[in-house]
């Protein structure tokens, strides 16, 4: 029984981590219909921001979070304003390929700058964990789990309760009408992408204490973001949490009760089946 509960908790925690770094992806798709194939690179840059600040200035990775957020916000704004904006009116495939080109450029430039080295941040609290009723919970992972809720909550608040959020939602629903009502669509898109990038950068910084970093790490995370966001519903922000946790739990259960190979296979089989039978996600609230 204890194994079952520990597995469940493991799954929920890793699910939260998944959600933290997939929320930005969902936001960008939901508002702009752009599949950002350079998503993982934004995460990687956030993580490396934390790493270098740690290595060079001994700044704790958690304190780097706001810095990563700001840097990625600016990068995201720039990418959207000067690159993606040019293809936003055209068929969606152009934006995927464009972001894919960006993925190649960013990941390989990072390799040139930082080499293929695998890096790790080891702090005094690395690997720290606490036990509740015999269940072990790693601290850094738990922190990112909480962060996921903060991110989703923040986005929810932003979209529902602020003017900017209303403008974003209006643009997402009907671009032409929003324009007629005086919304500067280009600026909204740039801000949305910037926010999505900032969140992803923050998630990157927050996972840096417990993952192994290397410049090409991005792609694996982009792939997980697909899975999470499809499960939860593309473009539906709270869906990132739901999708993430469901994916995490299924993976944990299959690793424990079958084997690791099957758990990875099931991740993709599940993604495929969801798309065939329920592309709007488990919640049914995804944009199609």
């Amino acid at each position: 029984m204890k194994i079952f509960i520990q597995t469940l908790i493991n799954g929920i925690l890793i699910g939260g981590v998944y959600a933290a770094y997939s929320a930005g992806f969902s936001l960008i798709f939901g508002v702009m219909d752009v599949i950002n194939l350079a998503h993982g690179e934004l995460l990687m840059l956030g993580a490396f921001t934390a790493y270098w600040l740690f290595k060079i200035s001994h700044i704790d990775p958690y304190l780097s979070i706001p810095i990563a957020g700001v840097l990625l916000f600016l990068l995201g704004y720039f990418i959207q304003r000067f690159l993606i904006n040019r293809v936003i009116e055209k068929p969606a495939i152009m934006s995927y390929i464009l972001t894919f080109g960006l993925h190649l450029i960013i990941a390989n430039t990072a390799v040139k700058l930082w080499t293929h080295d695998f890096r790790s941040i080891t702090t005094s609290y690395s690997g720290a964990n606490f036990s509740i009723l015999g269940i072990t919970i790693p601290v850094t992972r738990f922190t990112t789990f909480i962060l996921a809720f903060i991110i989703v909550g923040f986005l929810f608040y932003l979209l529902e309760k602020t003017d900017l959020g209303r403008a974003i939602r209006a643009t997402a629903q009907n671009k032409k009408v929003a324009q007629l009502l005086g919304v500067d669509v280009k600026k909204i898109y740039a801000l949305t992408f910037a926010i999505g990038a900032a969140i992803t950068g923050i998630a990157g910084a927050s996972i840096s204490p417990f993952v192994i970093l290397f410049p090409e790490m991005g792609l694996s995370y982009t792939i997980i973001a697909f899975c999470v966001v499809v499960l939860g519903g593309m473009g539906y922000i709270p869906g990132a949490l739901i999708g993430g946790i469901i994916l995490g739990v299924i993976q944990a259960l299959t690793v424990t009760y079958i084997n690791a190979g099957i758990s990875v296979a099931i991740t993709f089989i599940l993604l495929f089946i969801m798309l065939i039978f329920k592309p709007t996600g488990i919640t049914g609230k995804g944009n199609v």
Partner: protein
Amino acid sequence: MKKLLLILIIFVLVASLPLFGIDRYYMRFFTYLFMWIALAGCWNISSGYTGYIDFGPVVYFGIGSYSTAILMTLLKIPFFISIFAGGIIALIISTFIGLPTLKLKGAYFAIATFAFAESMKQIILCFDRTFHVKFFMGSYGITLPICNNYNLFYYLMLLIAGIIVVITFFIEKTRFGLALKAINESEEASQMIGINTTLIKLSAYMISAFFISVVGGIYAYWVTYITPDDVFNVHKTVQMVIMSLIGGMGTLIGPILGATFLSSISEYLGAEFVENYLIIVGIIVVLVILIEPSGLYGLKKWKKYLKQTK
């Protein structure tokens, strides 16, 4: 008509190269090039005209490789029958996968095809261990009988590339091609005028799957040793997409241009400076999308434009 003649002439020239005694290295380079022309051409058939961006074509490459490998090693079936059988297997699988996936649009179709490809890779990787059999050999890979006949692979790949070019030519000239392009413009309108869009899309998908699988089978015998990570690798999909895109999607010579262009710069740069090569490819991709989405093929538009402004 002139286009076809030009292609034919190049084809004959290239086919006679080995007779003039080019060295082994160049034969390998060209065999590779033909393989990519074939693969990019297949992707172009299934995705270039309809605009349904398939992100999982490598799955049929892997299916072809593994079918051929297993048939040749376990059942001792001769090479040519094996690759053909591999093609048939891909044809069957693509029917079952194509039907549900082609109902999806845009991003969802892309992700679904990718998901299927990754699933296949992971299944083949952990199958043996999970079910306690010795069939796919997982990470140990399968070793095929050795064949040192450079000429065989050169001509086989050239033949397949040629077949794909001919098929693409016929697609462009017939109503099948028109239907594919119509689906790209507006699937709803196409349906309304009576085009069975499902059948059309599925046909293109299946043709592509068959030939990708055959190429995969030839590849397996050529490199003699395959692993799931090699023959189901998403990087192969990426190559197919980029080659088609850079050359010009939905055109006859687009995949040929794209494959040749990318293979060449990969040769000059890629041997020693792969990151530079990938960064440059990334920049080219971005530039193509921003400036000339019809790729290299679209450049001829510029030629006309320049001529006019003179």
